[in-house]
């Protein structure tokens, strides 16, 4: 391919060319603002969308003429990310500063009132705080149970034994099931009249066992169901680390007669630490968002309401969209702080070693 064609002079701002993205942005912005001011929302929305498309097209043509193929290849992914993720995120951030309910046609700017209401209102703030502490409790309990179980399972499956492959598939099954199926399954599992736990305990004590009659029982039931489902995920990650440890290190250790505990700390652990941290991060974020199992098992009863379920209720069921958005951003803030704290600790640890 010859390179002579593309040596055109860089187009100035005013030339009308398909690759003049600067002009496209200025023109697009101008038209969009005019359209928003002059036309009804239903029409101006499409005009703005058209302008965005034109600007995007200008970028694409420009990139193509400059042979910037890497950017072109990544463009669809970035476009999807923007449309499906970044745009809604910014939109909901905007909404959180308005008084808006999705089933009412009015909207009014209220600044930070939604946030301050959530944090200071004498009816809403205690509820928010109770739900946050519940969420923290669930996060700590489910994640620690999952990490421990997953780790022990991985240690087990790192060894060779008969039927290992089939057992492994069996152990991984819960992770592949739909949460709804798991929820329904466990709600029968725990049911005092129909459930197996109650039946077994009744054979001993003669009394039906009502697991969900207390908060402790309800929390235990939910944590167990969640751990049953997600421990295999931790196991899978840790197992990947365990099998990646070169066997010659173990052989050398055996020659030096190193004890099994020391062998674990100095050889195995450094290899799986990164993956353990990854599992911890994933599971913590997921646990923080837990709502599905709770909706299915207790419907938030017995003081098991979590913050995510609370958001779903406010935003989707009670249609208090902007209040829900504000709450989501408070939640996002907490998650970002926690994640960064975690990454900071993880990084410092790895640099220290």
């Amino acid at each position: 391919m010859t390179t002579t064609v593309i040596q055109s002079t860089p187009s100035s701002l005013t030339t009308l060319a398909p690759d003049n993205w600067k002009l496209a942005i200025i023109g697009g912005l101008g038209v969009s603002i005019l359209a928003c001011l002059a036309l009804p929302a239903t029409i101006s929305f499409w005009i703005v969308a058209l302008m965005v498309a034109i600007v995007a097209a200008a970028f694409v043509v420009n990139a193509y003429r400059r042979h910037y193929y890497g950017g072109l290849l990544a463009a669809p992914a970035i476009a999807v990310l923007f449309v499906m993720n970044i745009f809604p995120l910014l939109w909901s951030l905007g909404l959180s500063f308005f008084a808006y309910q999705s089933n009412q046609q009015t909207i009014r700017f209220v600044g930070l009132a939604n946030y301050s209401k959530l944090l200071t209102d004498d009816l809403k703030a205690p509820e928010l705080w109770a739900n946050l502490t519940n969420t923290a409790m669930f996060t700590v309990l489910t994640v620690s149970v999952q990490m421990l179980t997953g780790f022990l399972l991985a240690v087990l499956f790192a060894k060779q034994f008969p039927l290992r492959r089939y057992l492994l598939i069996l152990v991984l099954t819960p992770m592949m099931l739909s949460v709804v199926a798991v929820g329904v399954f466990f709600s029968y599992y725990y049911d005092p009249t129909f459930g197996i736990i109650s039946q077994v305990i009744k054979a001993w004590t003669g009394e039906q066992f009502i697991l969900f009659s207390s908060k402790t029982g309800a929390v235990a039931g939910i944590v167990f169901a969640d751990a049953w489902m997600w421990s295999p995920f931790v196991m899978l990650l840790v197992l990947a680390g365990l099998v990646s440890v070169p066997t010659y290190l173990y052989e050398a250790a055996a020659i030096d007669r190193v004890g099994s505990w020391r062998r674990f700390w100095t050889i195995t652990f450094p290899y799986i630490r990164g993956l353990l941290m990854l599992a911890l991060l994933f599971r913590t974020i997921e646990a923080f968002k837990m709502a599905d199992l709770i909706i299915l098992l207790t419907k938030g009863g017995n003081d098991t309401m979590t913050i995510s379920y609370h958001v779903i209720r406010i935003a989707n069921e009670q249609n208090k969209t902007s209040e829900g958005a504000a709450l989501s951003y408070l939640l996002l803030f907490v998650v970002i702080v926690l994640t960064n704290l975690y990454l900071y600790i993880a990084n410092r640890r790895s640099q220290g070693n």
Partner: protein
Amino acid sequence: MKYKTRLKSFAAALSFASLLTIGGAIKASAEDVVLHMAVPDWPPTRIMKAMFDKEYKPESGNKVTLDVDFIPWPDFYTRVNASLTSGEKKYNMAVSDSQWLGAFVEGGYFRKINDLIDADPALKTAMDGMHPKILNAYSTYPNSTPNYYGFPQFPDILVSYARKDIFCNDEEQKNFKAKYNKKLPCTGEEMDSIDWDLFGNIGEFFMRKKGDMLAGQPADDDFYGVAFQVGKGYDFSSTSVHSFVWQAGGDIWDETKAPDGHAEGQVNSAVAVKALDHMLSFIKYMPPVAKTGTMDIFKSDELFRAGKVALNVDWVGLGEASLDPKTSKVADKLIFGKAPGTMGADGKINRTSQIGGQPFVLTTWNTDVINKEAVGFVKWWLSKDVQMEYASKGGQSAIKEVYSDPKYVSLRPWNRAWASQLDDQKDMWHVPQFFDLLTQQQDQYDLAITGKQDAKTTLDNVAKYQEKLLKDAGLIK
């Protein structure tokens, strides 16, 4: 040159777009009309759809199809709410729980139907023939004003489901008489006389352990006296609490008295606290799942069908499954009576009860053609013969001419108890804040039902919340 090609392609795009819109418009005015409808998935709507497909011939000569989304009950509100508020304008008609009217009317989704009723004498006759309590509960917003939004689809009422083999057993009859000096009811008419005292006696009397004698043979599993809804989901405890409060002479916050009627003082009145305590006192005679706060209408029905409960109070809408031997162990041993009530000082039982059931509504974005076909369908649906046939297949009708027909009582075993309770029905709020009010009090009642909080604190919390919410909304001065 470049400019020209650009213009050309722009023009081409424009003409293509206009072609599409015109095409769409033509399609809408053609002979084929599709009515998109959202309904809960259960027998009353399944029967309606089957009857429509088989029998409905539109008068207009158009080809009308009813495209029905059957949505499971637990998701029904969330799904319909999401569809309406997202603005996708998918449904032309929807079955709506009566309490939703305010929220969706204010949102501009449900169409006022007064003009359609006035323009059509046949429809007007049908609506005038409705039982007034049902019409107020299902059709009006603001509650009990002549502003109509819904056509009654399925009028649901609580009835008692009881086990004939157990209640009519001679041994049990004798023991009950000896213990309480009362006759253990055995026929439907005797069931009608159950007040909450007798209900409590029945509950206590039929608590049996595995191996205890039950109706002449050892019970194969633990057996329980009574059941009714006391669950955390949707409105599954509010329904019971409201009935108890109304029967005791108390009241929930009454929107028809706005803006002077307060929540505080009314919702947590001494009478209401006593009524809630009264309701809570029956939980010990229920299957233990009640103590977990998940005893909803489906759970109590399931337990009853599995033969674990002597007496269950539930909607007639769930009745079909208990009649079917495939889904019910007790299909051949059923008696139905009116739902229990509170015995008044005058010796009459007060059965004021929270109404169930649903109207169906039209949405505001329907074209004239769609509205015309929808009204045609509604007219056909509310005509006497069709309502009679619907009732014979397991539906119910709120039209006086239909339910007072002597044949009606024999169509379903619970119909006798059903029609006679119509006068006692009452609905909760229709205001847009309905779901907010409901979820908060469901949370609070759950704390009382699971034994975390006493009745007084519970109702105080509910009253405080409602007073503030309704004041902020301008519904209380």
